[in-house]
């Protein structure tokens, strides 16, 4: 099948408006006869469910958690971008569009990104109207801060809990519609498969996670909004339950999977402390506004620190290497995430790491505390403050800005970051790859849509900070509700879809077979055992830096591990009760297939871009020496994989990316 992105014709700034003016609409009376299923109720799914219900469709929403309020969007800390130019610092729709395309290393679809930038301002208005308590300045107006990869302050925030507040906003909009009966909410339900009738998505099979019951649900369209698949690495900043299953099930039924190898490694996470670790914790990127990143300049100091013979505060300014400020003077500590992550790895690989495992760098607030302390003293009329007073006042400012993050760090590491620099290291965070969608956000399965982190479209090979929340809400509130209407306008005479159709029966049968297999397999190793081994292969060979040899080995090893899993996995308990091991088994089975496709995609992409760093492709000379080397001649495409059974047999389809409004150039932050 040829990939048709369905990007509307015309100048980029007019595409979305023209599109909206010309699509078919469904009249309000007919919307009442149309059902839509939304799987996943985080920022994207929650906002979509609420808006579709408000438009008049009958919405059935599904979440594996006990409430939409638990979705992992809630953990996003730093903020949400919008081109409002409230600060008067030169921001505009075009500049947000430009930063996003450049930040994504020119591997995103221009038209989608422009639309995202265009609706971004509406998101803020919408959320404020819903009662989201964004930070305000003393004049009562909204406050902004800056994030990595940009030169303007366009990030709106609610302390370090922006994701939480935006999600609760979408959740409250859902609650309004649940209360009115327009959304039927299915909590603690997991989607097990999608059902296709005459080639169109017409329903899903779910498992009630409490009773184990397998259920059939029909609809005129299915929306997948189940987030990212970073947990393929086992250790990541994702919630424990985050999984690829819904995306993988639709992939197996015909939806192409795009750019699986684009993974964002977030530079400011709490380092790994031991083998028992179940997940990694992210510290907001906003910390880089004030924290300075450094390692010791001399190897012997780094060693002394690792052995506990020296403390970071023992080293003078000259004995420290502020490597981001040194290498990237224009952006300094605020370089994009992929650049900051690779730079940290480079220093640690060279032996300058500062924790016991040598995999950590410092994020230091001492300078910020002094700077803020002096400023506060002046505000209070003290022109000659003591060092203690400066320290005290400065810490108060830092506490007001980042208090919850500092507390979180202290609880996990048992060290007070006000008095000693934090230790940070990159960790798997967000996945830019996902289901391939066209401009309408529809997958290659007619009637099956995919929104938010679960699709691939807006971030290219790297996601700029504070743009994930923006995409989730843009898709859910403002894009999908239009595009899905165009599709559903052809369905007004279809009537209710029966769940007695043979397609439902067949899908249910195969779901039950897999469940029965798991509970009867009586193997010898737990689900987590396999998940951890998969994660190790992924991190070692498909992680922050990749090469052809490692990727080829990874593909073989994952295949072998998958075979072992199906022979030897042990799932205790029964199928008809609450059984978390059984739920995990199905998810890990899917990760074991995705992992191999992920490595295959990375192997094919013989260039470095964004979150994909191929060791064979680095600049060897000139001002960019050592930086990632992109290859626009051969690789300016989206790789969209078609399922053909084994992941190794997947067929590559290329969507050639066109850049008519932004010139492709080397991404320099120097």
């Amino acid at each position, binding site marked *: 099948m040829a990939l048709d992105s369905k990007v509307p014709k015309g100048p980029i700034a007019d595409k979305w408006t023209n599109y909206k003016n010309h699509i078919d609409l469904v009249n309000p009376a007919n919307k009442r006869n149309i059902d839509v299923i939304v799987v996943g109720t985080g920022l994207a799914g929650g906002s979509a469910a609420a808006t579709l219900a408000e438009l008049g469709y009958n919405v059935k929403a599904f979440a594996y958690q006990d409430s939409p309020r638990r979705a992992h969007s809630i953990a996003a800390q730093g903020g949400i971008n919008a081109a409002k130019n409230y600060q008067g610092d030169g921001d505009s729709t075009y500049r947000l569009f430009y930063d996003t395309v450049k930040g994504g290393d020119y591997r995103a679809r221009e038209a989608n990104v422009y639309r995202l930038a265009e609706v971004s301002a509406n998101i*803020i*208005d919408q959320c404020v109207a819903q009662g989201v308590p964004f930070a305000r300045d003393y004049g009562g107006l909204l406050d902004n801060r800056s994030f990595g990869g940009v030169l303007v302050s366009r990030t709106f925030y609610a302390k370090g809990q922006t994701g939480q*507040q935006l999600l609760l906003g979408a959740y409250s909009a859902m609650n*309004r519609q649940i209360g009115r009966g327009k959304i039927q909410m299915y909590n603690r339900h997991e989607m097990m498969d999608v059902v296709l009738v005459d080639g169109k998505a017409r329903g899903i099979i779910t498992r009630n996670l409490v009773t184990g019951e397998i259920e059939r649900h029909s609809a005129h369209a299915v929306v997948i909004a189940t987030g990212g698949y970073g947990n393929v690495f086992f250790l990541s900043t994702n919630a424990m339950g985050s999984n690829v299953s819904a995306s993988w099930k639709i992939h197996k039924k015909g939806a192409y999977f795009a750019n699986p190898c684009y993974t964002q490694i977030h530079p400011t996470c709490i380092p790994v402390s031991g083998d028992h670790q179940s997940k990694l*914790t992210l510290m907001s990127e906003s910390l880089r506004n004030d924290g300075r990143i450094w390692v010791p300049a001399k190897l012997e100091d780094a060693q002394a620190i690792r052995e506990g013979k020296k403390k970071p505060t023992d080293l003078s300014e000259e004995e420290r290497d502020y490597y981001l400020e040194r290498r990237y003077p224009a952006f300094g500590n605020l370089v994009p995430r992929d650049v900051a992550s690779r730079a940290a790895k480079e220093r640690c690989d060279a032996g300058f790491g500062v924790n016991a495992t040598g995999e950590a760098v410092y994020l230091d607030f001492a300078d910020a505390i002094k700077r803020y302390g002096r400023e506060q003293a002046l505000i209070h009329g003290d022109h000659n403050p003591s060092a203690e007073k400066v320290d005290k006042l400065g810490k108060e400012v830092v506490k007001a800005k980042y208090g919850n993050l500092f507390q979180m760090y202290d609880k996990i590491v*048992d060290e007070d970051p006000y008095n000693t620099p934090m230790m940070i290291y990159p960790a798997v965070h967000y996945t830019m790859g996902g289901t391939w969608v066209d401009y309408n956000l529809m997958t290659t399965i007619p009637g099956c849509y995919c929104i938010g982190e679960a699709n691939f479209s807006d971030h290219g090979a790297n996601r700029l900070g504070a743009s994930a929340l923006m995409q989730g809400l843009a898709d859910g509130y*403002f894009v999908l509700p239009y595009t899905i209407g165009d599709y559903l306008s052809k369905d007004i005479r279809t009537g209710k879809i029966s769940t007695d159709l043979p397609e439902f029966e067949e899908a249910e049968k195969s779901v039950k077979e897999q469940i029965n297999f798991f509970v009867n397999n009586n193997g010898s190793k*737990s689900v*987590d055992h396999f998940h951890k081994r998969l994660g190790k292969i992924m991190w070692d060979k498909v992680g922050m830096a990749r090469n052809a040899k490692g990727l080829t080995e990874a593909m073989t090893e994952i295949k072998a591990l998958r075979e072992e899993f199906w022979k030897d996995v042990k799932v*205790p308990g029964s199928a008809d009760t609450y059984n978390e091991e059984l739920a995990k088994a199905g998810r890990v089975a899917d990760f074991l297939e995705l992992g191999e496709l992920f490595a295959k995609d990375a192997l094919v992409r013989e260039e470095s871009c964004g979150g994909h760093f191929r060791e064979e492709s680095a600049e060897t000379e000139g001002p960019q020496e050592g930086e990632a080397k992109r290859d626009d001649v051969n690789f300016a495409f989206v790789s969209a994989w078609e399922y053909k059974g084994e992941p190794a047999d997947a067929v590559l389809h290329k969507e050639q990316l066109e850049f008519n409004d932004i010139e492709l150039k080397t991404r320099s932050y120097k």
Partner: protein
Amino acid sequence: MNLKLKIWRQNGANDAGKMVDYSISNVSPDMSFLEMLDVLNEQIINEGGEPVAFDHDCREGICGMCSLFINGEAHGPDRGITTCQLHMRKFKDGDTIYIEPFRAKAFPVIKDLVVDRGAFDRIQHQGGFISVNTSGNTQDANSLPISKHAADEAMDAATCIGCGACVATCKNSSAMLFVGAKVSQYALLPQGQVEAADRVRNMVAQMDAEGFGNCTNTGACEVECPKGISLDNIARMNRELFKTMI
């Protein structure tokens, strides 16, 4: 560390349930409490048993999914944290730890340590929102200035993660801290004031219908709240409710 665990096991809402003894060795002080339970579960699975069911997800202290009553305290022996943020360094070698579900009539047990907190959602369905279309055709966000003080106070209330520790720790199983926080968030913002009266009436009515108890100002909820939600929110909720009666 070596620890003895006494864990509540219950097959479902209608099962009687009982405390079961476990022992676990080589616990690292750097483990989180939930990671310690992961290790225990791995041990139970390897011995052919059924792992202990407990709720958890983000493990960053923000999703509000984890629960657990540990040695008689919601989220265990530390202030201002969820169970996933509790680390084993808070315990000593040889300790015996009691682990139970959040007990309240309105939170029926699903299995072992997992309870159904759906009552919180149903309260929200009755008014925990501002009635505004999600069309994006709203006024500019800066056209209605909000004082920093009001925005900060609303934010403090909105910080509630809906974990239910307040209910679990209250001798009356009252949900007033949770409901008070939601009512306050909206009551403090101009956008929320238009329908403030209906909101508080409906949410309080649903709270009562769910079987939560009343507040007798013991203050345990505030002490155990992982997010430091203040009792002031209960006072504000009562004020909002009284206003509707005048």
